[in-house]
């Protein structure tokens, strides 16, 4: 029993409305006649009372999985394949339906259990992410969480604040470089190549590194 792609899309949208935007119920409107809606109701993902949709617990679990796959796909296309912005969303929309659970975990591990999609929205945690916290290997994390004397590779720079990004790049810090953290207090001091740099916590949080490499 696999949901139709259309039903999956709607379930994703509903999960975002209920879980992230914290809406109590969604008005059904004209989509009443949509066969995908009745499909969702049939499988017990939603309840329809008069004109309003309410997401069931089962629907919440499934919706979370779908959103996770969508955002993971986006990360995959941006980080690994360098796909253009305009194409990322439509491709991800199709790709997510092809992902099985094991593949999902493999992708998530490959990407280093990322926390945010390229649009800055949170990627719901999967089992593999929770496990990975115990085994510290090949995980992408901000520089602030690296241990002193630990070596890592810069995976990417991420912040909504372009000024911060510019400051980091002005120091010549770019993805792919090897980095060793020397000190965390009172400021973050690290070594890249033969040079040492000092930055404060707000900037260190924007540098994401892949440890254990």
């Amino acid at each position, binding site marked *: 029993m696999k949901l139709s792609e259309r039903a999956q899309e709607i379930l994703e949208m509903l999960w975002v409305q209920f879980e992230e935007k914290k809406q109590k119920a969604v008005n059904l409107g004209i989509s009443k006649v949509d066969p995908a809606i009745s499909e969702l109701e049939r499988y017990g993902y939603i309840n329809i009372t008069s004109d309003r949709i309410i997401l069931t617990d089962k629907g919440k679990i499934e919706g979370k999985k779908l959103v996770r796959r969508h955002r993971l796909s986006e990360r995959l296309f941006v980080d690994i394949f360098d796909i253009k*912005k305009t194409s990322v969303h439509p491709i991800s929309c199709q790709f997510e339906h092809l992902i099985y659970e094991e593949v999902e975990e493999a992708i998530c591990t490959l990407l280093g259990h990322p926390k945010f999609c390229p649009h800055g929205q949170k990627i719901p945690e999967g089992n593999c992410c929770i496990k990975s916290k115990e085994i510290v290997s090949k995980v992408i994390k901000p520089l602030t969480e690296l241990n002193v004397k630990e070596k890592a590779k810069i995976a990417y720079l991420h912040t909504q604040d372009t000024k911060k990004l510019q400051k980091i790049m002005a120091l010549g810090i770019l993805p792919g470089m090897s980095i060793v953290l020397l000190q965390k207090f009172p400021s973050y001091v690290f070594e890249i190549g033969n040079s040492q740099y000092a*930055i404060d916590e707000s900037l260190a949080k924007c540098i994401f590194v892949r440890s254990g490499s």
Partner: protein
Amino acid sequence: MLEKFPKKIGYTDEIEFYITKIEKLLTYNYKIAKRAIALLLLQENEEILELVKSNEKNFKEILNIINELKNIYHQPIFYIINILRQREASNIIKDVIVFSDKKKKNIFKKKLEDIFINPLIGGPILLFILYYGLYKFVGVFGAGILVDFLESKFENFINPFFINLVEKYINFKPIVDLLVGDYGIITLGFRYAFAIVLPIIFTFFFVFAIIEDSGYLPRLAMLVDRLFKKIGLSGRAVIPLILGFGCDTMATIVTRTLPTKREKIIATLLLALAVPCSAQMGVIFALLSSKPHALIIWFFVIFFVFLIVGFLSSKILPGERPTFYMEIPPLRFPEFKNVFLKTFTRLKWYFLEVLPLFILASFLIWIGKITGIFDLMVKLLEYPVRFIGLPKETAIAFLFGFFRRDYGAAGLYDLKKSNLLSTNQLVIACITLTLFLPCIAQFLVNLKERGYKNAFFISIFVLFFSFSVGFLVNLIFNFFKISL
């Protein structure tokens, strides 16, 4: 092989496409390649955007093109362009450069570098540098021995020579006063610049250049960053603030290196209020050194004012929070040539900027004397001076303090000699005068660097604040019946 686009750096086809599109729209002669301008535009370089805006009538269309490209990528365009450049650079060097295993760093040097970034050892090192570098070398040697020597030369040879010369050839008294009077251009302005400021500034810049060349400053900036964030500044601001202990005027100009307007204003305010320059500190040490507990009270009041005003202004002033980023160069033994060149260029620059201001100060005092404005201002200042429990004779020291802060302190020296001031009053006067309006040179630089509005606001604030602190200290002394 024919290529679609001239291959300079392997940008993506999209970026190349938009570069060409913009290049075609550029009509003005920018003196650098249009490709370079187009690349800077795509990275939204503010300066270039302004330049192009004022020179191209098609600016709107260009903006549209930039936005079109921005919509294609997730990351900002400058991020993508820089990553591509980095890739290209790595490609170029990978075939021609071999990295040998990292040269084993000198163990001693490595240990030393670890020590200098250690927060626990950093404090004592700073105190050591301040004591020997600033107090012993600049304070005792520069402001003491050298100044005494040069001053005596001026008093005994140079001043009498010029006074004779001028009085011989000019009979008009006001002009004689302007040149060689008590506040004359030669007798005050030049004497000041060469006999008092030159040795102090020379020794200070010399020490500063050694510290700078050794690579210590970025390490200090890194260590104080967290503390400085509390007063609205980043660690970077430690450089102008330390320079302020040499000369506040120059330090205010150096606040240019701070990235945001907010940091510039806070640093300018702190320099104007609570960072005494070396000349001023020299005189205050001389005034209070016979009474160590008085000196300690002076120090703590000034330090407390520094922290509290910094803290409050960081709460009040709008704007983004400061961020700190800095490359830390390796520690090295200062090179004589570098130290010499830096000291020399700074001294030269200092004289070109500041000597005219000394002359202007002499000139203003001269005008003030002739027109009677000077006497009027002394009368006006007598009120706040009495308000903080000082004899009215100190008013003139405060007015001089505005022309040169240390000159005001020197005025106190005369009052102390004639036993007009108790130790309590001396401490209050020193505190108020340290906080009081910056010298006229610094005021003019404030105008130039921060604009009229900010400069006047800072001056008025400093004026009221300095007397309020003086008043408060006097009140505390009286209330607890403290007699130093």
